[in-house]
């Protein structure tokens, strides 16, 4: 064993109380830091999963445009004017959607792509009426994307495949109309097409507003409700491998499809903002905790150096260089950091395990917190880094101590 390490260990061993105190500072700092970050990651994952129950990673659609002048006049002195420009809704359909979908499916990062028709409609029962939105989908593909199956209260999504005039409704609608499985429900679309549909399933999401308005029908049924032909599609839903890359990927998809593409984060802007706030807030709190821990380490190493002035002078007199002294105190700090960080990881583990056992109920269930290996690795790295930084300052001042000044006293 190197003599510097030997000296560092002896210093720590003969001051067990101080060593433990310094380590505890790191332990609490790292433990709480990892716990806090895991909370944020857990919350965010939970809310992301909520989004992905209803929102695709990327939605491709045709944006409504104001009518444009036919002539493109280059002369800057003359401006074309259109009196009463209107939104031209001729083109709210995507042209040749099956070609777009097969193009998308050839993309390496695309996991699934499916057609979607959005229909505004009323659900009727006697005199009562509910406004809502039906999604015309290929239910198998939509299920692969949104995991509709997991939200089903009654019935089965397979039944929609075998029932052309079937509908899967939200539990809110079913409750209001007192409708049960296999009952009929009458709907009338915004363009005036009315149909009697058979309820083949009831779903319940965590979102009450959605449960009171949304339903799924087969793609052809939705086209009929809109008086459109079988090539009419309003959106294409795309899921990609890494949803966090959706923002960057939209540009690419706009280029290959020629239509607008919107990522899930833009679609859920308000929720994203609160997510960001949460991250900043927790980040600031954990940083403050780490700073306090760092200050504790700084103090204790500083105190050790002050107590060991004599030792430092002797070591220098017998031939230890400034670098050796620096390395001795850095080693002490490193060992304190190692003990503290290891215990901190255990503390974080225990905290997370304890909290994840708490049942919240509602749409959350158990507290959304998990052991995230990345967070643990990051916490350990930050813990060691901060400890070493905090210890470096007093260690360097120890290295610069002039032994003669000590001996003269």
């Amino acid at each position, binding site marked *: 064993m190197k003599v510097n390490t030997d000296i560092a260990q002896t210093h720590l061993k003969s001051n067990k109380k101080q060593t433990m105190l310094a380590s505890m500072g790191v332990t609490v700092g790292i433990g709480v830091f990892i716990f806090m970050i895991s909370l944020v990651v857990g919350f965010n994952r939970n809310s992301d999963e909520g989004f992905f129950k209803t929102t695709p990673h990327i939605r491709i659609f045709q944006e409504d445009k104001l009518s444009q002048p036919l002539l493109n006049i280059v002369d800057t002195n003359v401006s074309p004017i259109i009196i009463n420009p209107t939104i031209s809704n001729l083109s709210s359909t995507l042209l040749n959607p099956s070609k777009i979908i097969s193009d998308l499916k050839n993309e390496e990062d695309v996991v699934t792509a499916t057609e979607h028709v959005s229909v505004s409609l009323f659900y009727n029962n006697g005199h009562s009426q509910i406004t809502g939105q039906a999604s015309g989908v290929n239910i198998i593909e939509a299920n692969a994307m949104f995991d509709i199956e997991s939200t089903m209260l009654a019935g089965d999504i397979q039944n929609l495949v075998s029932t052309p005039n079937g509908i899967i409704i939200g539990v809110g609608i079913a409750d209001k109309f007192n409708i049960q499985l296999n009952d009929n429900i009458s709907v009338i679309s915004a363009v005036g097409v009315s149909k009697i549909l058979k309820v083949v399933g009831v779903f319940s999401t965590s979102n009450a507003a959605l449960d009171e308005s949304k339903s799924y029908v087969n793609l052809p049924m939705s086209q009929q409700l809109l008086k459109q032909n079988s090539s009419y599609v309003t959106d294409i839903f795309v899921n990609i491998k890494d949803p966090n890359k959706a923002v960057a990927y939209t540009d690419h998809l706009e280029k290959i499809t020629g239509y607008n593409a919107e990522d899930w984060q833009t679609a859920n802007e308000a929720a994203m903002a609160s997510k960001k706030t949460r991250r900043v807030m927790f980040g600031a709190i954990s940083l403050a905790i780490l700073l306090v821990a760092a200050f504790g380490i700084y103090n204790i190493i500083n105190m050790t150096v002050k107590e060991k002035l004599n030792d430092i002078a002797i070591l220098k*007199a*017998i*031939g230890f260089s*400034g670098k050796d002294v620096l390395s001795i105190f850095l080693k002490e700090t490193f060992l304190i950091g190692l003990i503290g960080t290891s215990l901190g990881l255990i503390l974080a583990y225990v905290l997370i395990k304890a909290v994840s056992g708490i049942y919240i109920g509602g749409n959350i269930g158990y507290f959304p917190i998990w052991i995230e290996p990345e967070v643990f690795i990051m916490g350990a790295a930050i813990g060691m880094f901060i400890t070493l930084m905090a210890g470096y300052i007093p260690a360097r001042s120890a290295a610069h101590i002039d032994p003669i000044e000590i001996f003269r006293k």
Partner: protein
Amino acid sequence: MEKKIILQTNNIVKYFHEPVKFKALKDVSFEIKESEFLTITGKSGCGKSTLMYILSTMDSDYEGELFIDGKKISGQSQDQLAMIRNKNIGFVFQFHYLLPEFTCLKNIMIPALKLGVKSYEQIEYEAYQKLELLDIKDQALKPASKISGGQQQRVAIARALINDPKIIMGDEPTGNLDSKNAKVVLDTFKELSQEGGQTIIVVTHDTDFAKKSDRTIVMADGEIIDYGY
């Protein structure tokens, strides 16, 4: 046979700047031959300790030149000086500066472990030999803070010897010892210079001690007034 010069100073001048500018050493030039047992005396405040710190390479802030074993020491980096101290110089202080948290044995071993030439076992063996030489082998495994003053001083001398340095220096190493312990130290130094061929430079107020050395330099007001030849 003419003996070789082991340590030489040329016109060493040392200033202190605080609290007022003060010339503590004025043109100190002298030489010491190999295996010489040299004592330095002089009134309190004449600059003996100041000179010793320069000779021991711990103080490098001076004018003039210092040569040890033919090599120029002045102007070398702090790291190089530390290496020179480790290898060539053993220092014994007036107060028994030991590392209190280590055993006596470990205190003696540390300079050799730092030098890193010999194996741990070999160093341990030699440390025991030095303890035996100074007649304190029975204290080997006690913490350095738990033995008497005279014993501590002998451990410090053993530590100064562990790397078989060319020069052993002491600043009033017997200043805190009773006459019996002082004699043990004196005899050890004499033996080392006569049989071990090591050079001894010791600052002392003890005239008996000085008389028994090979040569005594007398200082006054930062100057050498008697070279002892």
